[in-house]
């Protein structure tokens, strides 16, 4: 393999095994994208990983992690109305944050073109819900293309750029989790790196760009006129493909062989798109009498003519789509308008609305649809049981030390409000800190509401440092402005840890360079927070006392519980060729109180069947934050040669 940065820039045709998130970067470069923005969120951060693999001096476009998805969208928009082809990418729920900006984009003349990459997460693999963002496409008159494979990611991004530039309108490329993370060998085409103009082309004449009442409706009219154009494009698009099954030949996509007259007698068809299409193809490997397939790449607007033809050509059509009945509604509408006598089978029960359409899921859905499809096998009841293994904080994590200490300061009745980040894991056993969670930055608003009329139960909110900048600040200002009564604990680990250690405004670095640091404490002081404490989370006793003090005060106050992310720290140490400290050991003093296991719960501490505690040396990073938790000081440093903290 060539280095990722090299093959992404290769001017010759090149083949590589890549994930969808890498493939899209090659497409950005080939199409001459000038500005790319984002806020980190699964399943998309590896797009930035691929961008970062290209040295800054060779990178053909500007990239930034903005402070949140809304700002990222605005930066990309600003670049586009100035004539630069731009792209913004973020996770599914990131679109909720960006929505205020996003819904306006369809009304604007985006002279440079703009592609929005949505990393949707069916199955909620790493999100707080599995929302179906196809609805946003309908809401905002922004076309949506949906690739099924990394190869299609590469091809459809280029298609999205063509449409966007031609009609000066935004286009969505919806990549779900297992499109972002699926890998396959892709043959990338040759490319000519074009020299782009830096000329600022912004002019109100290109717009209008100010949607005052008098203009807003006309702007909407223009958006709908563009929509009519894209509808035609969808009808002609090579990404909407009919596959017709013939028993001896298999599936054929040959246009000549698919003709309306010969389709009259055909019985069954399936309309599908994206990942469910691939799963269906897997299931069909086991089916003799295979249905025809209409595979959609244009999910909105739909190719009405192709769908009508497909409906007319079949007696029964199954609409196979994950999450909501987005395609089903539109397809049923078309059938009704055209008075097509076809049986359309959409979602049949609640389970059809839930979860990712993996091959297993599609097997279940199709078994309910047609009886000759493989039916679920009886479960083998004799298999040994094994409990799930949810994610947990890493060995040495400053948050573990914090939660251990904070718990000692809390009463059972206290209400703990979680936010998004690695510290959300505090909600799990044995800490159980964090009882309610909505979304990024919600904690101070929610905590304020919980504190109203509430004289009996204290309220404490949590917030990570990247989330502080992302969406946390308005809730803090509100708490000060409206005199709310709760304690905020900011879990500062100096990075955006959960999504892969991206920088944030307090770290003094952005994606490209050293930059001005914006320390949290200074921001809080500037906002007018009078009462701020700051404690290193490894100082557990001090932290417990600080929390007690904070929570017994009236009004709003802030405690910054800080310790650098130790996963990042140990990785940086290893990369720099430095040793990490020796693991700890359990000394003879151990009297089996199990505080290290049942309360502190670092995964390093394990237990033999006879109850002896042992240290899993593959896990321990020698951070020694555990030593203070043992009531009999049985956790000891080892004296072997090693690095020091």
């Amino acid at each position, binding site marked *: 393999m060539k280095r990722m940065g090299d093959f992404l820039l290769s001017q010759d045709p090149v083949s590589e095994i890549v994930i969808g998130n890498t493939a899209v970067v090659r497409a950005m470069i080939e199409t001459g994208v000038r500005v790319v923005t984002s806020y980190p969120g699964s399943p998309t951060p590896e797009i930035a990983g691929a961008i970062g693999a290209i040295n800054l001096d060779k990178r053909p476009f500007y990239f930034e992690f903005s402070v949140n998805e809304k700002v990222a969208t605005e930066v990309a928009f600003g670049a586009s109305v100035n004539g630069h082809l731009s792209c913004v990418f973020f996770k599914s729920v990131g679109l909720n944050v960006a929505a205020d900006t996003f819904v306006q984009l369809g009304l604007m003349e985006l002279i440079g073109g703009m592609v929005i990459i949505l990393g949707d997460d069916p199955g909620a693999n790493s999100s707080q819900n599995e929302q179906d963002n196809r609805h946003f496409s309908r809401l905002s008159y922004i076309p949506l293309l949906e690739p099924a494979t990394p190869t299609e990611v590469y091809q459809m991004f280029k298609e999205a750029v063509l449409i966007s530039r031609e009609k000066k309108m935004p286009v969505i490329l919806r990549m779900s989790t297992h499109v972002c993370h699926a890998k396959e060998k892709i043959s990338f085409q040759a490319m000519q790196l074009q020299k782009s103009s830096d000329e600022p082309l912004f002019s109100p004449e290109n717009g209008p760009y100010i949607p005052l009442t008098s203009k807003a409706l006309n702007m909407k009219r223009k958006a709908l006129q563009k929509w009519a154009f894209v509808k035609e494009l969808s009808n002609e698009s090579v990404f909407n493909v009919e596959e017709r099954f013939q028993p001896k030949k298999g599936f054929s996509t040959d246009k000549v062989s698919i003709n309306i007259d010969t389709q009259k007698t055909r019985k069954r068809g399936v309309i599908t798109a994206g990942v469910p299409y691939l*799963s269906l193809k897997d299931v069909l490997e086991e089916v003799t009498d295979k249905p025809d397939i209409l595979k959609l790449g244009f999910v909105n607007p739909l190719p009405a003519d192709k769908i009508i033809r497909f409906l007319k050509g079949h007696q029964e059509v199954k609409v196979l789509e994950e999450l909501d009945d987005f395609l089903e509604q539109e397809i049923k509408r078309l059938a009704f308008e055209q008075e097509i006598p076809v049986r359309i089978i959409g979602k049949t029960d609640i389970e059809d609305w839930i979860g990712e359409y*993996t091959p297993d899921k599609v097997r279940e859905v199709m078994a309910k649809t047609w009886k000759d499809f493989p039916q679920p096998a009886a479960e083998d009841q004799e298999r040994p049981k094994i*409990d799930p293994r949810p*994610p947990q904080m890493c060995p040495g994590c400053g948050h573990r030390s914090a939660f251990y200490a904070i718990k000692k300061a809390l009463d059972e009745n206290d209400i703990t409000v979680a936010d998004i980040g690695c510290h959300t894991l505090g909600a799990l056993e044995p800490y159980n800190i964090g009882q309610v969670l909505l979304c990024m930055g919600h904690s101070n608003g929610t905590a304020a509401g919980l504190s109203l009329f509430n004289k009996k139960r204290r309220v404490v909110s949590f917030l990570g440092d990247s989330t502080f900048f992302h969406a946390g600040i308005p809730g803090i200002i509100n708490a000060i402005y409206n005199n709310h009564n709760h304690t905020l604990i900011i879990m500062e680990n100096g990075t955006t840890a959960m999504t892969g250690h991206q920088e944030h405004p307090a770290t003094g670095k952005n994606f490209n360079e050293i930059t001005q640091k914006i320390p949290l404490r200074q921001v809080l002081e500037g906002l007018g927070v009078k009462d701020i404490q700051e404690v290193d989370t490894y100082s557990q006793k001090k932290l417990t006392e600080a929390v007690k003090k904070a929570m017994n005060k009236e009004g709003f106050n802030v405690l910054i519980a800080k310790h650098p992310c130790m996963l990042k720290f140990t990785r940086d140490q290893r990369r720099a060729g430095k040793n990490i400290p020796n693991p700890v050991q359990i000394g003879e003093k151990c009297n089996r109180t199990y505080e290290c*296991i049942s309360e502190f719960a670092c995964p390093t501490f394990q237990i033999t069947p006879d109850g002896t505690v042992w240290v899993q040396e593959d896990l321990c990073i020698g951070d020694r934050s555990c030593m203070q938790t043992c009531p009999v000081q049985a956790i000891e440093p080892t004296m072997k040669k090693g690095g020091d903290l």
Partner: protein
Amino acid sequence: MNQFDIYLSGVGGQGIGLLSELIARAIDHSGQRVIGADTHGLAQRGGMVASHIRMGQTVHSALVGKNRADLCVSLERHEALRAMNDYLKDGATLVYYDAVWQPLDVRMGTTKQIENVLISDEASRRGITAIRVFEEGLQEARMQNIVVSAVICKNSFIPGVNQKHFLSAMDDLMRGEMLVDNQRLFRSIVEKEQK
């Protein structure tokens, strides 16, 4: 060969991603079609992580189906049982590195640690070939994935994929000292197994 499905699992931090990339590239070097998918994101933090690798002309989705894997590879004992339970076909093959990273429930004493005998008993009940791998005195826990890949290679558990393909895949993925150390370890395991 029409298709061959491999399911890999372990605990976040064990190096499943690299092992998966290594196997996928070895298959590619053998001239066979390969697709797959890895776990990224939050689950990597000490949770169960899985990778899917599918080879052959008749595979479409990047994800292996439940009870359909021809080969399960795991880097941890509990995850080996889970992989075998959830993904492995009866009569297929399980290769696991016998590291124990106890899940929380085991550490808290609410459930028992999985012992090797349970895995071997369950494997025989289902006609599965279960290979336990453990290398004494390994320089680095992060090299356990290389040991496992060497055992897979030596036993030709992946059709048409041999030592040359694995070594080429390492050439693709590693540089400098890391490449030298890992290739040396790989060769030594393959040769040791031969004796």
